[in-house]
């Protein structure tokens, strides 16, 4: 199997593919051009979506390009494929509602405020207020509110992202093992919820327990579990949403 990029290989593979329609050839072409997808996906990596997801989205564009490419056009496949892949990535962000709806100014402020918030959380030992954020970032409180709201809208959409892609193998993880049983027992006291709670990943179950049964704050949980407070917040909303819809019918976490 060759994965090294070569124009001649590409031409040959395309010729064979058009002739035989062999899906194996299509796949080989896709593999051959994956570095192009990776390169293009990286250009979008600072927008808050995991690179792996972007590569996947870009790959969809690549496959479309492979299916539509016409050898007789006399252009290189990579030249032809680039706009298709980029188009797919752009559409992904557009569908996510971020790139288009939220003005650039707010996106930038929102990203900057994220940093200010984590710094303040560290300095104060608690979550900051809007006025504290405004002071630290040297913008008005209304601007902070505006940016937070746009950021919030954005986080809400990224709830669809698969959970559990944080590093689960943090050292604290081992120390926490013993607490698991307690968590389950307490949560399962609510018999109607037990089957739903069982569907939650271990980490989500623990977060649920710590927040609602131990009364731990989000920041404390964040520290304990080794993820950011914002992430804890997102997970909590998502867990509650899941439990609610689960009680009313069926739901998948």
């Amino acid at each position: 199997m060759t994965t090294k990029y070569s124009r001649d290989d590409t031409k040959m593979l395309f010729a064979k593919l058009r002739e035989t329609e062999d899906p194996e050839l299509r796949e080989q072409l896709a593999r051959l051009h994956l570095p192009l997808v990776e390169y293009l996906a990286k250009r979008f990596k600072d927008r808050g979506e995991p690179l792996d997801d972007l590569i996947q989205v870009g790959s969809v564009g690549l496959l479309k390009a492979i299916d539509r490419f016409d050898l007789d056009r006399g252009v290189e496949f990579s030249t032809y494929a680039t706009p298709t892949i980029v188009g797919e990535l752009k559409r992904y962000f557009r569908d996510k509602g971020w790139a288009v709806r939220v003005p650039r100014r707010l996106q930038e402020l929102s990203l900057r405020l994220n940093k200010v918030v984590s710094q303040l959380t560290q300095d104060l030992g608690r979550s900051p207020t809007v006025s504290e954020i405004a002071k630290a970032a040297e913008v008005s409180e209304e601007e902070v509110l505006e940016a937070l709201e746009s950021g919030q809208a954005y986080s809400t959409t990224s709830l669809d992202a698969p959970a559990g892609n944080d590093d689960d193998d943090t050292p604290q993880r081992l120390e926490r093992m013993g607490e698991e049983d307690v968590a389950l027992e307490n949560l399962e006291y609510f018999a109607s919820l037990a089957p739903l709670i069982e569907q939650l990943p271990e980490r989500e179950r623990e977060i649920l327990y710590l927040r609602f049964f131990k009364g731990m704050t989000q920041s404390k949980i964040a520290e304990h579990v080794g993820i950011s407070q914002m992430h804890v917040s997102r997970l909590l909303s998502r867990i509650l949403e899941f439990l609610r819809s689960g009680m009313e019918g069926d739901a998948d976490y």
Partner: protein
Amino acid sequence: MTPSGVITVRIPAEAGHVPLLRTAVAGVAARQDFTLEEVDDLRMGVEEAAVLLLRRSASQPIELHLEVTGDGLDIRLETVIDGDEPAIDTSSFSWTILSALVDEVASTREGNRARIALAKRRTQGIPA
């Protein structure tokens, strides 16, 4: 300097409108020096309470009343409900959630009007 008075938001009894209540409470709380985390708690709490009422609602609007107090925020959610039971079963999981999210939670009923009252105080300045 702080504006006073009760802010009311009324939504039709449809789940699709509940996010508006979340936004309203967050907007008020964030302007009242609650920490971001507390704002988040309030958002979740109001949603939980609204969903509880929605399940029991006799297709009547759900009202959210927000009142800024000296040390925090008083929140009332009200609607007209069917049946004779109280608005919330206090042994339910939702009740546990609400109790963790706010400082006070009460469920009352007058005639066919059910009310869930939540109160949250600012802890600004008190380390977590």
